[in-house]
């Protein structure tokens, strides 16, 4: 199918679900791209993973009670995010395995709950792997509104989040409310996960959070640029992924993630400074380190990664 056919289908009133799916997929990918920058830079991928798991029983309950899935997922996810924020304040204590145990249990609980609904196998597949049909109009609005709130808060608290990412101890000494900033960030990650669940699915949503941001990190050394590149990569992957998925009748979540992964691999190989090839080239050439008048030569670029 050519891209023109795809665009024609998008405006076909008989296929009204398609533009809705596209809007939700692109919006959530953009939001996940921006939030994902913090997730990648703080190395908190496991929070995204935890939240994606924990959201499931909330979805299941909402499904059985026929309530809003976004709302059900949000409640369960935010509760988890708060618990993790509280547990992880004391960095000396490793709670990883405890959190792991609870999350898999939550997932199991979700499966048991959802099995109470008639014909649950189809819905289960939809939750786990995403789907482009059956997005109600009110969810479209909810996703758009939530996305704007997330981006607005990230912008408003940007310098505080950066300070905490750089150095928690210094942030505390400056009087920043580090604990509350952690909670806000975790909740924003959760909301980004929840609004993405419908199209991408529970299993793959982590990729939407991590992959575009990780690719963007390889392409730049400037945070501002990274936070523009990541949503651009995510949004484009969503668009291209939905097009391919529609053309070849393949699951949309899987295709979107594969497209984003392709972008990541290209960045990993060819990125101007951090790519594999660029590093090999500099290693072969061994440029003289630029001397510093006060403390001698700088370490080689990228040494700290």
């Amino acid at each position: 199918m050519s891209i023109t056919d795809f665009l024609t289908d998008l405006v076909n009133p008989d296929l009204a679900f398609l533009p809705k799916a596209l809007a939700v997929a692109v919006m959530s990918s953009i939001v996940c791209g921006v939030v994902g920058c913090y997730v990648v830079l703080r190395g908190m991928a496991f929070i995204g993973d935890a939240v994606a798991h924990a959201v499931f029983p909330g979805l299941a309950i909402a499904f059985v009670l026929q309530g809003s899935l976004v709302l059900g997922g949000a409640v369960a996810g935010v509760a988890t995010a708060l618990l993790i924020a509280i547990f992880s304040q004391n960095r000396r204590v490793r709670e990883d395995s405890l959190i792991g145990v609870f999350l898999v249990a939550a997932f199991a609980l979700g499966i048991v709950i959802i099995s109470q609904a008639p014909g649950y196998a189809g819905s289960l597949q939809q939750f786990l792997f995403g789907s482009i049909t059956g997005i109600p109009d009110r969810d479209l609005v909810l996703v758009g509104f939530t996305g704007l709130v997330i981006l607005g808060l990230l912008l408003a608290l940007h310098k505080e989040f950066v300070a905490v990412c750089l150095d928690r101890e210094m942030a505390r000494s400056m009087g920043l409310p580090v604990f509350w900033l952690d909670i806000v960030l975790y909740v924003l990650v959760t909301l980004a996960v929840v609004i993405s669940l419908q199209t991408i699915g529970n299993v793959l949503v982590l990729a939407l959070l991590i992959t575009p941001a990780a690719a963007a990190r390889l392409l730049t050394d400037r945070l501002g640029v990274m936070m523009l590149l990541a949503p651009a990569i995510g949004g484009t992957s969503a668009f291209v992924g939905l097009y391919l998925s529609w053309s070849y009748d393949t699951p949309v979540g899987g295709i979107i993630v594969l497209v984003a992964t392709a972008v990541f691999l290209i960045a990993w190989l060819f990125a101007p400074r951090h790519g594999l090839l660029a590093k090999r080239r500099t290693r072969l050439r061994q440029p003289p380190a630029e001397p510093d008048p006060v403390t001698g030569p700088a370490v080689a670029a990228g040494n700290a990664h």
Partner: protein
Amino acid sequence: MRALDIEHLDVDLGGRPVLRDVRLHLDRGELVGLLGPNGAGKTTLLRAVLALVRTRNGRVLVEGRPARPGRSAIGYVPQRHEFAWDFPISVEHVVLSGRTGRLGLLRRPGVADWRAVGDALDRVQLSGLRRRPVAELSGGQRQRVLVARALALAPSILLLDEPFTGLDMPTQELLGELFASLAREGRAVLMTTHDLVAAVESCTRLVLLNGRVIADGRPDELHDVEVWMRTFGVSETSPLLKLVKAG
């Protein structure tokens, strides 16, 4: 008025006593080396000055007032490994981040903030590298970035946590000179280290700490081998003591 007064300070961490009856006074112009073995409570003492740990007893006065995070005129330079050096950020933005607390929520940095950043970078001679990503700096340059970040608040007290650790001798010497001149300009500088040579070289006063203050005096006053043995828990044959006697 003294820059820093610590009176009868007791601190417990995780239910265990870490500091007991610590008394320490700092005037502007002093560069004081806080010496002690690993686990002596050096970092904890700095955190108590910053009001980041709960004190069990005693008090900490910064320029005559109880210390409060974000309010006191203290510049903090934590150990280099506390900082996320792989973060995609330039030198000048790291220094600017030192003013985040003072700026307050929802406020963007203005002319005064950037001027403070420029002054701090000039002071540590990093102006030439201000746009460089911090990941590409050497250890000595990184230490100076952290000092500049602390100076961006124009503090009257500077707390340095093990600034020499992991640096080679020439770099240590240059940093020591920088700290000494920062003190001479009228700041009170308190620096933890377990590097004796560098401390004896640059400090105007040494405080030996191991849970409590074991000795406090000018480097040339601390020739009593016994206090060094008690602080560091070493025997009479330790090479450390040769250094002390030689100094």
